[in-house]
């Protein structure tokens, strides 16, 4: 191996290691502050590691605000949205590829057009509609606006389009109803697409602040990001340890999920870039 190649590798390795350290710095600092006792937080000295680990910040985070409740709300909202999205998107995507009906091109055109619309655009009319129905400040207000995922329909449609229709024809000959074919044959086959979509959907809605900020003002309905914003607003500067602990707790599920299932996460989130 030539010296020049070695030097080049050393330079580029140093560069990426340094970059990675900067990228990870906020995570490290968040954990570090969350584990430090108060007197070590409020110092001008530089210290990455606490001299003694202080778990009380985490206890405080769960008692100062109702963090458990926020996490539960996050689970309810994410699962609720995902279940309805799949219930609507999978049959529709199946019909778009495996059935011949007149409005098919029109419906697929709507899916493609829908991809162009960021969810911020529909916020005002949907808020008005929910207000009319007296549904603001409910779980419905947090779930309903997202049940029709055009991105999900698009993803499943692309997947079903690759499956030979003979397979479904054989199931029909066996006497299966179309609904049974959708859920017992097509959906299990689309598992890779479903995983990618689930990662995309759960990440997007677990992390979302925009809609929960608009649709709810009741603290009991706060999702995790909404909850820590409440915490940050009420916090007067003395509670930074517990605040960082709460931030770490809220970030943990997705970060751990990502570390355990890197492929699924990378694919799901990369595919999400198609959505406008």
């Amino acid at each position, binding site marked *: 191996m030539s010296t020049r190649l070695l030097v080049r590798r050393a330079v580029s390795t140093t560069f990426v290691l340094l970059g*990675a350290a900067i990228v990870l710095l906020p995570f490290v600092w968040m954990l570090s502050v969350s584990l430090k006792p108060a007197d070590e937080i409020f110092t001008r000295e530089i210290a990455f590691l606490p001299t003694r680990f202080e778990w009380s910040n985490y206890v405080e985070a769960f008692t100062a605000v109702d963090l458990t409740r926020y996490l539960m709300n996050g689970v309810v909202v994410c699962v609720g949205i995902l279940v309805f999205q799949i219930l609507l998107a999978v*049959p529709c995507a199946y019909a778009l590829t495996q*059935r011949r009906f007149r409005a098919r091109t029109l419906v697929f055109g709507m899916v493609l057009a829908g991809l162009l619309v960021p969810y*911020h*655009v529909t916020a005002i009319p949907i808020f008005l509609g929910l207000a009319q129905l007296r549904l603001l400040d409910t779980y419905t207000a947090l779930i309903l606006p997202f049940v029709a995922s055009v991105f999900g329909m698009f993803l499943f449609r692309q997947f079903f389009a690759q499956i030979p229709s003979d397979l479904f024809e054989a199931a029909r000959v066996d006497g299966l109803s179309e609904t049974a074919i959708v859920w017992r044959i097509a959906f299990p086959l689309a598992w890779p697409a479903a995983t990618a979509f689930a990662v995309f959907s759960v990440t997007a809605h677990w*992390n979302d602040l925009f809609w929960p900020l608009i649709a709810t003002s009741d603290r009991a309905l706060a999702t995790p990001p909404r909850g820590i914003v409440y915490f940050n607003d009420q916090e007067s500067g003395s509670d930074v340890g517990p605040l960082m602990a709460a931030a770490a707790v809220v970030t943990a599920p997705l970060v751990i999920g990502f570390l355990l299932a890197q492929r699924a996460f990378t694919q799901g989130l990369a595919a999400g870039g198609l959505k406008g």
Partner: protein
Amino acid sequence: MRRLSRAGRDALTDLWLAGPATVMMIVLIFVPVAIVALLSFTDYQFGARSFRFVGLENYTTLFTDPIGRRAVTNTLLYVAVVIPFSMGLALLVAMALHEMATWSRMLSNVLRAAYFLPVAATLVAMALAWQMLLHPSIGLFNAVLSHLGFPRQDLLSDRGLVLYTLAAIGIWQTIGYNMVLFLAGLAAIPRHLYEAAEVDGADRPWERFWTVTWPMLGPTTLFVAVITATQSFRVFETVATLTDGGPAFASETLVYALYREGFVYFKAGYASAITMVFFAFVLALTLLQFRILERRVHYK
């Protein structure tokens, strides 16, 4: 009951399968888009009993009012800062990791995961972590600054710096995503092209980059640029968590203005006009993205 014909049954099945999704799409996407477009020409306020059409008044306000203009120019500036830095750094990291994979796949994969971590993390929580890191008195950043003999900076309360600070957080958050797209682009470049370039005398890394890598990455680069732009146009979470558009509207952005005017001040008509301007920007970019994707498919 009369038995349905086969065609009738088929039509019912189609309706059962595709109908609910179609109805929800219309109710939750297309009707709202029509309403928001219509509202943008009115002076409607949430809770008001009536409204009147005011023509283009909301749009003129947005582009003439100093605060409205701040929202537009700030967003454009934010996007203009995030795109080149996020893409440039992502490309450098991707090339380094791509090369590293030839001698240590494991290290390369570990670093790849590290760079991608901010994409999966909850941005609101990480924004608070950044706030701590940049804290004027107890943050690591300022501790280092004052150690080196520089004055402490309150990056999130400084009118001149706040937007760039938010852009830096935006860059931090998008590098990993762009890196993954670039890595896919790099993996798709056939090895023999590099060998051919070498035969033609391009043996320095710089020459190989300009003769092979850069031209072959062309479509990926365009695609990444548009995706970064559409994502950056939506900047909201960091603004709402850290600055509320301040100080003195120095970090006001389109989506934050839409939120504040609409849902804090209840000016639905004006907020609708902001929405439409935001939509126009994103729509133009997304249509561009579709065209690029299409060309990429034809290219193969």
